[in-house]
Every structure is written in C-alpha cells, then in structure tokens.
C-alpha cells in the first residue's frame, strides 16, 4: 500500500514537473534514402557560404591552403560552424541535462563538446573560443539556441571560408518522426556583419541511430595528415622563395 502511494505521488510529480523531451541518443547526419520526404535547405554549404562572402573574405579564402591551413586535419579543433557541411563531423551524442544540453561530437578532437546552457544568458565579457558560447531555451517542443563568442580561427565551410569574432549562429532544433525513423531537424542561420554580405541559412536532419557511438581517435590518422600538411607547407615555402 505504502509502495503504491509512493509510486502514485512520484508519477503525479513527474507529470507536474514536465521534464523536457528526452532526445538522448546518438545521431548521424542523414543522407541518401534517409532524407526521403525531408527538405534539406542549402545542401552544399561550401557554395552557400561563398555566395555570401564579402570581397576581403573571398580573397582570404583564395589565399588559404585547404591542406596546410586545416586545423581539423591535424587533430586541432575545427569549430562547429563547418559541421553542417561535412558528413561525419556533425555526428553527435545528444545528452540532455536539467541545466544544459550537451552535444558530444563523434570527432571529439576536432568538433569537440558543445554545451548549450539553459539557465543563463551570455556572459558580458566573453573570451572568444572555437565553439563559442551557446545558450538555449525551450519554445514548446523546439530548442532555440543562440551562439556568439567565436574566435576567428575556424572556417565556415570546408573550403576555408573565413569569418570574424562577430559571427552569430541562431539555431532551432526539434525532434521529428519520418520514414519510421527519429530525427533532429536543425535550422541554422549564420550572420557576420564583417565577413558576410548577408546571413545564410541551412536545414539539416540528424537520424537517431540504433547502434552505439563508436570510438573515434583522431590520432589513428594523424601521421598521414601531418605528412600531407608538411608537404604542403614545404611547397608554399618553395613558391615563396621562387617569387622572392
């Protein structure tokens, strides 16, 4: 009798407490057949970003070496801004907690861990970081996220498209059911008054997996990437000497 009463009180309190929806799980960027009936907006992030670059940013992009200057290729952070443009760097564990949402990316060395705080605003004196400062709130069943405080070391897309510390990322995430699968729909808008002529947007779908997240160790491939980067840096040095 006592146990039944305890369970009844607990059940009622759980209903009254209205916990946010449990989206926990491992999600991968949906591709191919998994996208049937879903509207991916601006699927080619490289082109989308390039169309919005200011002239100086376009020049910087053209002067940037895709191999030598790619921090992510040598296991350094690459930031979250380019994640919607590449198939693997956007895969994540979605880990909701009462005070924050944690997105732990499969490529932990490069995309790293993102924490979206639900219990505070952006700090006033924000030090620029690779993934910026994310705060969020629930609007019904949609998670609305605002991110500022990026450093200018990362790229907006794989084509080494630059941005500044003024970058502002607005996202809306909601869980949907389609094709018998569960997805997180992510609508992103990127603004940067110094690097972009106007804001660009994209929509991506991340499919909830039935398998466990595998281990990803950037170091498994780092020697190969370092060799490629060193070869490119040598070429750049040779070219500079020839010009001189």
């Amino acid at each position: 009798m006592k146990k039944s009463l305890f369970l009844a009180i607990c059940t009622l309190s759980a209903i009254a407490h209205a916990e946010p929806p449990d989206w926990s799980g491992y999600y991968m960027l949906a591709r191919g057949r998994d996208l049937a009936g879903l509207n991916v907006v601006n699927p080619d992030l490289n082109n989308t970003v390039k169309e919005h670059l200011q002239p100086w940013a376009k020049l910087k992009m053209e002067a940037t070496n895709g191999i030598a200057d790619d921090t992510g290729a040598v296991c350094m952070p690459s930031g979250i801004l380019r994640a919607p443009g590449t198939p693997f760097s956007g895969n994540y564990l979605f880990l909701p907690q009462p005070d924050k949402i944690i997105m732990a990316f499969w490529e932990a060395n490069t995309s790293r861990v993102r924490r979206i705080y639900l219990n505070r605003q952006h700090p006033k004196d924000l030090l620029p970081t690779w993934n910026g400062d994310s705060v969020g709130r629930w609007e019904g069943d949609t998670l609305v996220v605002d991110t500022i405080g990026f450093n200018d070391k990362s790229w907006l897309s794989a084509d080494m498209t630059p941005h500044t510390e003024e970058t502002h990322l607005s996202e809306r995430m909601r869980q949907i059911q389609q094709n018998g699968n569960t997805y997180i729909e992510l609508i992103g808008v990127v603004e940067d008054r110094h690097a972009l002529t106007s804001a660009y947007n994209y929509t991506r779908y991340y499919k909830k997996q039935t398998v466990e997240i595998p281990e990803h160790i950037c170091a498994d491939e780092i020697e190969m990437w370092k060799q490629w980067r060193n070869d490119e840096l040598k070429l750049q040095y040779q070219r500079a000497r020839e010009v001189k």
Partner: protein
Amino acid sequence: MIKLHSNHVSSRAKAPSIYLSSGLLFFLAAPFIWTTCAYAQQTPNIAGVYRSIANNVTLPGDLKNSGSPNEIPLLPSVSAQMKTADADAVHKSDPWRSCQPVGQFRMMARDGIVVEIVPVKGMLVMLYEDVAHGLMRTIYLNRGHIDGPVAAPDPNIEASKGTWFGDQVAKWEGEGDKATLVIDSTGFNTRTWLNDADAPHSDALHLVERIRPIRVGKDQYLEYKMAAEDPATLAKPYTYTRYFEKLDTEIAENICYDEQ
C-alpha cells in the same frame, strides 16, 4: 444552532481553497518530489563536474589519494625491456606530448583533472575538460561486454580487436550510502601506456573502477578506486584511490598544442 450552521457553511466554503492551495503546493514542489523519487527509485545521482584533489591534500576523515600508476608492479621481464629502451625516443613518443588519448588508467590518476559525468538513459558519458588526452568515455549500463571484435568507427576502417578505451560497461552495487558504480573495461588495444614512464600493457588489460558518492562536511565528493590487472605485464593486480570534489563551475574550452 445558528452558530453551528454558520461554522458548517464556513468550513465547506474553505474546502475548495484548501484543495487549490494543496494542488498549487504540489505543483511547486513537483521538481523536488520528482528528484527525490528519481533518487529513491533509481540510483545516486552523480551527474556533475568534478576535479581530482591533489595528492598532498587530506580531507576530513583522513581521506586522501593513495597509490599511483608510477608504482605499478611490473613483471621483471617488462621492467628489463623498458630499461634497455632509448629514454629520449620514449619521451618523444609519449602520447601525452602529441595530444593523443592516454587511456583511463593514466588519466584518472592525474592531479586536478576535471571531468563531467553525464548520465542518460542506459549509459553514462564521461567528458574530460582536457579533451585531447581524456577524450570522451561511453559507459553502458544496459548490457554486458560485447563478445568478439569491437565495431569499427567507420565503414572504411576494419573492425578492431581492441580500442583505446576498451568496451566499458557498468552497474550499481549496493544501496543508499553504500551504492557504488562499478565500471568494468576490457577489449583494449595496446596504444596507450600505463604510466608516465612508458609502461606498456597488453590487450588482456582489465580495468575495474569503483565510484562512490560521499559527503565530506557540506561538500560532495566521489571516492574513486581504479584497479588494473594484466597477466602479461603486471606481476599482480594494482589499485589506486583518488578523491574528486564536485565543482559548481562550467567546463572551459581547453586546447592541447602538439609539442612534436
């Protein structure tokens, strides 16, 4: 008679307001009741950010760190092999220097490491502030160890016999103050070292971590015991103990710069 009637009417009129205020109180208290229920029905809540205390700190109750990966009892043949190695080359090949994961046995023993414990349905994730060296650990509460090769991280990569962090499963033992989370890890590759002096391990390495939430005064701590056994490299199983204090801070971005 009239007075009685009057009282009777008054108590009936009060009834709805009592129900209303009780209901309101219940809704206000719901998060706390829910938390209590979750605690009572399930297991201790160890979610949060923790930092390991320094080896020279003693907590009330004479609680202090003990043991170290540098004191592991290696087999004589393994020690002899390490002595003949080129010390300089060994130092240069330390995964720590090149921002590679160092494995949980070495990582959890370090002074002042910050780790966030994140429980979700069926699993527990450990996220280190020092992402490069600690990376993230996924510990499963809903299954035993996987038999056979561990799933490959990518369809283009062959299935691996072992991984850097092994196959990690856990269960709660005991109840209340005695409740202890026991993490059992097997299925390692041989890429990590057991300590700062390049002590190797084999793919038979077996780690058992026992984590128990404790209160020291008003503060919350974790008592953490790590036990290692590896018949191919260790003369006998070895255990070290660390204490982790719960922090009320956010995890900051931490970047490792390759020294190579």
